[in-house]
């Protein structure tokens, strides 16, 4: 069986993984997906500069601080204005929005929050319905919190009130024996019954402790999450509440370590919404978007499904197949010669949606692409992972087990647009 030749575009010097940005590649277009053209007027093609413009301020902020606003190049500015125009329309054309977002949401813009909400189907495409939808969802979240975040003392107090238990005013003056009353529903703190509120509370404490620990460890370098300020503390509280409500509403998967990492970028983006009302309600919005985002990836977190057709192992195998299809030499070298089992590196890439591999700002860019690609986040994620492997192919081909594993577990900083462009080229149906 003849070896498939390495495609020419792979051998091009463009794909060197050094951090020196090759500006030309940034302005390559992405192929237009099937656009469902409604009655919107034909759009002018995005203007392409004749020569590389001066490099804009670095998008990938240092990991020690929050990504700050960047000055925009003319091309980015035009993209930004197009995006703003698109989301300000009365009926948003989702295909058009996806196409625009694929090219990247420029940094320093504050529209990412609205865009992500649209892409995650939290906001309806009809602008007129936004206010109603938002209010409905936010009050629903508030009801969840009221119901699920109570401690048992308060629950029993409410039960007493509803049972109209006579509580004599034991505050009054005078002495004597205190009256004993019956307990409602057999609820007492040491109850071992499975339906007892107290028992359930103590069983949940383990999960809540785990959530607490993980929330405190989220992004320790970013002041947004781990400062000593009350702002950071309130952010951590919000993350905590969202994860606890999610765990209680989903007894199937509860909380798994790593969900906090998937939650963090969502909350960050929504909390930094320029609209004050939206920023104040970021917690509720994040909850629903988190549920939506996780709905596609739930099976990766479920331990019982690990070995099934939909579990994480199957997904990793798909990645392996994708690599084999596009770059058989690399695949052979990685898996067979150096025996680097994809589970060693791809597990974290896939379950945490690449949040741990790149710095925060780059991660937001990748997520732009993940959320906007019409093929869906699962397929896009696999393509991006495959692209990550292909970009460092030279180093991988030259390395042995130890060096390859080390490289893949500490993936080097790359130009993200590069990466996304390569991922784009890997489109095409996967043989099932």
């Amino acid at each position, binding site marked *: 069986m003849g070896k498939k030749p390495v495609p020419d575009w792979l051998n091009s010097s463009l794909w060197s993984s050094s951090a020196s940005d090759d500006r030309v590649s940034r302005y390559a277009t992405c192929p237009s997906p099937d656009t469902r053209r409604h009655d919107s007027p034909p759009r002018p093609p995005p203007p392409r500069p004749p020569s590389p413009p001066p490099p804009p301020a670095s998008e990938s902020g240092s990991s020690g601080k929050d990504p700050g606003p960047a000055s925009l190049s003319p091309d980015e500015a035009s993209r930004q204005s197009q995006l703003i125009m698109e989301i300000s329309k009365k009926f948003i054309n989702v295909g058009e929005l996806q196409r625009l977002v694929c090219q990247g949401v420029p940094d320093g813009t504050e529209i990412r929050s609205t865009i992500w909400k649209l892409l995650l189907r939290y906001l309806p495409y009809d602008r007129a319905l936004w206010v109603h939808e938002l209010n409905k969802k936010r009050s629903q979240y508030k009801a969840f919190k009221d119901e699920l975040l109570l*401690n*048992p*003392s*308060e629950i*029993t107090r409410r039960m007493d009130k509803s049972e109209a238990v006579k*509580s004599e005013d*034991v*505050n009054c*003056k*005078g*002495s*004597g*024996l*205190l*009256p*004993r*009353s*019956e*307990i409602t529903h*057999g609820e*007492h*703190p*040491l109850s*071992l019954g499975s339906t007892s509120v107290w028992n359930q509370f*103590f069983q949940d*404490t383990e999960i809540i402790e785990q959530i607490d620990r993980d929330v405190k460890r989220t992004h320790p370098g970013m002041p947004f999450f781990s400062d000593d300020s009350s702002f950071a503390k309130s952010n951590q509280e919000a993350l905590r509440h969202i994860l606890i409500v999610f765990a209680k509403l989903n007894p199937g998967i509860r909380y798994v370590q790593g969900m906090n990492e998937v939650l963090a970028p969502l909350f960050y983006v929504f909390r930094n919404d320029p609209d004050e009302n939206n920023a104040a309600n970021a917690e509720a919005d994040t909850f629903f978007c988190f549920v939506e985002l996780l709905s596609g990836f739930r099976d990766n977190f479920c331990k019982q499904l690990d070995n099934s057709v939909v579990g994480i192992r199957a997904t990793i195998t798909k990645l392996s197949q994708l690599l084999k299809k596009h770059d058989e030499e690399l695949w052979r070298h990685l898996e067979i010669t150096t025996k680097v089992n994809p589970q060693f590196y791809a597990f974290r890439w896939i379950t945490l949606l690449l949040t741990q591999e790149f710095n925060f700002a780059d991660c937001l860019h990748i997520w732009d692409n993940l959320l906007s690609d019409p093929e869906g986040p699962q397929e896009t994620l696999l393509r991006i992972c495959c692209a990550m492997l292909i970009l460092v192919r030279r180093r991988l081909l030259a390395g042995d087990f130890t060096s390859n594993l080390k490289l893949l577990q500490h993936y080097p900083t790359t130009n993200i647009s590069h990466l996304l462009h390569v991922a784009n080229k890997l489109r095409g149906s996967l043989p099932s």
Partner: protein
Amino acid sequence: MVLVLALGDLHIPHRAADLPTKFKSMLVPGKIQHIICTGNLCIKEVHDYLKSLCPDLHITRGEYDEDARYPETKTLTIGQFRLGLCHGHQVVPWGDLDSLAMLQRQLDVDILVTGHTHQFKAYKHEGGVVINPGSATGAYSSITYDVNPSFVLMDIDGLRVVVYVYELIDGEVKVDKIDFKKTATVQTPH
């Protein structure tokens, strides 16, 4: 929401072998934040067992305790409440409300927990509340042989306390509760 276990007068091994099994099955570590014990354990093994339920353990000396280092009285603050602890054999007449009220005023506490009579009681008077958790093993007392095993679990939540009384009557655990609120302390200039 702080859970405080109050018990005492176990008299192990002299008058009783162990806590009733039904009580022991309910008392698992990890649920209770504080334990206050009126005394008369009497041996170190009981102390260790209670310590395994909860690391924050407070004990006062009963007349049969083998460890002479426990104090005669103890006060502690949990949440908004000041609790006082004393075995009760020092207060004569045993179990008399007025004498216990004197002790309570002396210690300046909202809730006084004493034992020695091996009978559960919960009194209220102007100065505060006096709780006697009884004997957790049902050991006979200096006064009577007819003793039901009992102990008390307090749920302190802000200014409100719910006292759950656990008694073993005819082999079955019966739970009652007592609810009371403390008026917020008002600083009045005299």
